[in-house]
């Protein structure tokens, strides 16, 4: 090839590339609309729920012959980085699962479509949703998603161990704790905790270094399944208001954190932090499967994990009540509509369908998540009844005192700071007050 012809080739290639870049050559690979058929992309992160969603989507496609839906599954750990990259490239999926921890940031970045006009135009009845769930997806009067499901935290227990200690499910769910002597909750956990010689923590000669079985196991990366719940039960508010400032260093919160620390370090009734600290510790279902603990505080989303490792030898009781009464974290996901969708009308049809009674009934029958529509809760209970487990404690708690997952633009900062600080608290290397102060200050500084 001569030098001049080479130059011509290079110039042609460069200009072709430039032309492409300026005119957006080629189709973007997504949003293929051929012959009037629109293909929507729907992003999710849970493989366990996919089969049920496929079923629901199949019905939707039958009702809307001109719309096809492609489910895109990516694990939680990669889901968000992928979604954010796609948003940067303006090729995000038309409909996707949204989580409260990411919602504030997304609504600020204008990547979520406001559903209010659609809801008004279709006269959609939003009263079928729990108002607590529905308002969680609102900001400034705009609705940024329809409730997909909900979850609360309850006590999952080993049936055999509870029986051995002479306790019933109702008794376990009716316990209470206080910050002076631990209350009936700690007493019950003492009964469930046994060292290698068969001694309990309240007996002389108990060897806290060689414990065969603990009463309780706690573990959480952010507090959702441990101290947030204790905090609500002690009258602590995590934030001054939704979208407001963090207030986790007020005395009622610090006392609740202290109590959770005491369960491990003072009463010796909870599995040591060296075993359960996130992210590298054993997961709660793992601790239960290994019979290291009799009870765990865990979310309803893990029911399938207990079912596969304990095969019906577990039950669910309500969380204990604290000085301020009962309480749990109440959270859920939504189906959100991407603001950059090329087919917003069809995508809204899908969001509407996924939020409908008909679709949620299909999802519920699989038993992996509680439905966003509370009237279907009984269907979910029935599914688990068939599997031999009474899961109604979760829904009873949802109807009682709850705190929502904190709505804040500082979630990312909080999640990083809290894990390190609180891991130290549970190990006894930092005081609850110092940890709460530092996390509170750093998280508030990150609020945009």
């Amino acid at each position, binding site marked *: 090839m001569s030098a001049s012809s080479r130059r011509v080739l290079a110039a042609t290639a460069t200009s072709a590339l430039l032309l*492409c*870049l300026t005119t*957006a*050559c*080629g*189709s*973007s*690979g*997504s949003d293929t609309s051929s012959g009037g058929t629109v293909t929507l*992309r729907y992003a999710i*992160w*849970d*493989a*366990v729920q996919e089969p049920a969603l496929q079923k629901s989507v199949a019905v939707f496609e039958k009702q809307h012959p001109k719309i096809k839906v*492609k489910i*895109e*599954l*990516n*694990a*939680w*750990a*990669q889901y968000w*980085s*992928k979604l954010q*990259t*796609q948003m*940067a*490239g*303006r*090729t995000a*999926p038309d409909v996707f699962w949204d989580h409260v921890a990411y919602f504030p940031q997304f609504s600020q970045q204008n990547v979520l479509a406001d559903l209010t006009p659609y809801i008004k135009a279709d006269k959609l009845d939003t009263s079928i949703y729990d108002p607590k769930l529905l308002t969680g997806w609102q900001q400034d009067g705009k609705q940024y998603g329809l409730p997909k499901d909900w979850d609360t935290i309850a006590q999952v227990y080993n049936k055999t161990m509870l029986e051995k200690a002479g306790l019933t499910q109702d008794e376990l769910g009716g316990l209470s704790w206080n910050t002076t002597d631990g209350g009936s909750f700690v007493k019950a956990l003492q009964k469930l905790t046994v060292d290698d010689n068969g001694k309990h923590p309240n007996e002389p000669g108990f060897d806290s270094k060689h414990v065969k079985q603990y009463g309780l196991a706690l573990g959480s990366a952010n507090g959702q399944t441990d101290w947030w719940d204790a905090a609500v039960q002690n009258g602590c508010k995590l934030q001054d208001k939704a979208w407001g400032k963090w207030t986790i260093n007020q005395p009622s919160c610090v006392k609740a954190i202290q109590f959770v620390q005491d369960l491990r370090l003072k009463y010796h009734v909870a599995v040591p932090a060296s075993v359960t600290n996130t992210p590298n510790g054993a*997961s*709660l*279902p*793992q601790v239960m*499967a*290994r*019979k290291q603990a009799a009870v765990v505080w865990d*979310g309803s*989303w*893990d029911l*399938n*994990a207990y079912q*596969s*490792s304990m*095969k019906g030898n577990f039950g669910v009781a309500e969380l204990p009540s604290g000085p301020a009464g009962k309480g749990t974290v109440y959270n859920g996901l939504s189906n959100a509509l991407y603001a950059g969708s090329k087919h917003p009308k069809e995508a809204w049809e899908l969001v509407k369908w996924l939020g409908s009674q008909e679709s949620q009934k299909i999802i519920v029958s699989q038993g992996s998540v509680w439905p966003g529509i509370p009237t279907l809760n009984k269907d979910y209970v029935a599914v688990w009844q068939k599997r031999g487990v009474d899961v109604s404690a979760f829904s009873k708690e949802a109807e009682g005192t709850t705190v929502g997952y904190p709505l804040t633009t500082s979630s990312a900062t909080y999640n990083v700071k809290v894990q390190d600080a609180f891991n130290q608290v549970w190990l006894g290397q930092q005081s609850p007050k110092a940890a709460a102060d530092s996390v509170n200050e750093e998280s508030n500084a990150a609020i945009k």
Partner: protein
Amino acid sequence: MSSLSTAVRRTTLYGILAAGALLSVAPYLLTLNGALKRPADLLSTDAWIPAHPATFANFTAVWNQYGMSSFLLHTLSVAVLVTIGQVVFSALAAYALARMEFPGRDWLFWGYLATMMVPQMITLVPLFLMMRELGLVDTYAGLILPTLFGTPYGVFLVRQHFRTIPHDLEAAARIDGANTWTILVRIMLPLSRPILATLAIITFVNTWNNLIWPLIITNSDRTRVITVGISALQGEHVSDLPHIVLAGAALALLPLIAVFLLFQRHIVRSIALTGLK
């Protein structure tokens, strides 16, 4: 006395070697062991407890229900194409940068090499935007193109090897009437087999194990590769399908072992060669 101290030295040496070997091999054995356990035993027994009773049910499930067979095929075709591309283009570029004279050659080489220092995460979004503009999102071309034409690492590896080949060989060939192309194909490449094999295996393994780029650029099962397929099975808080994840991981490992066994002779030789210099 001296034989005793030799014995002690030997024992210590072998002890350290054995510990090192155990540390490197154990994760693979534990993965395989876990993949053979029943789902109920997986969480309730420690990782080093042998699978008993052992079951192949996890493998059949991962193969049949979770589409791993097609993911494996996708990964294989992508890895093979990228490997061929990298070996061919790295060799061409390396020869130009090692032996051809043109102005700014060394600047070009060091500049290109410097891009190795930029973490992949920095170029991820711009690269994605470029692929989107080219309409290559969710296509095989989008998966393959960014690494098809070689990487700084590959070019560097081959160039350094080319530079160790005596100039006299080339000069002799030129006297016999060989042109540049003939020299490259008949002299340089045959002499560089070990280094090209090393490049091939490194590229293959890297492409096989790459998660972040396939994750970002592909969306559908049609283009999904094994790493993305396995990672998708992990849950938000805890995987409900740990047995499936482990079986998938064990399955994904097999082709890599096959490739290594195929090329290991060359790799050992290339290491021996670098030692001779």
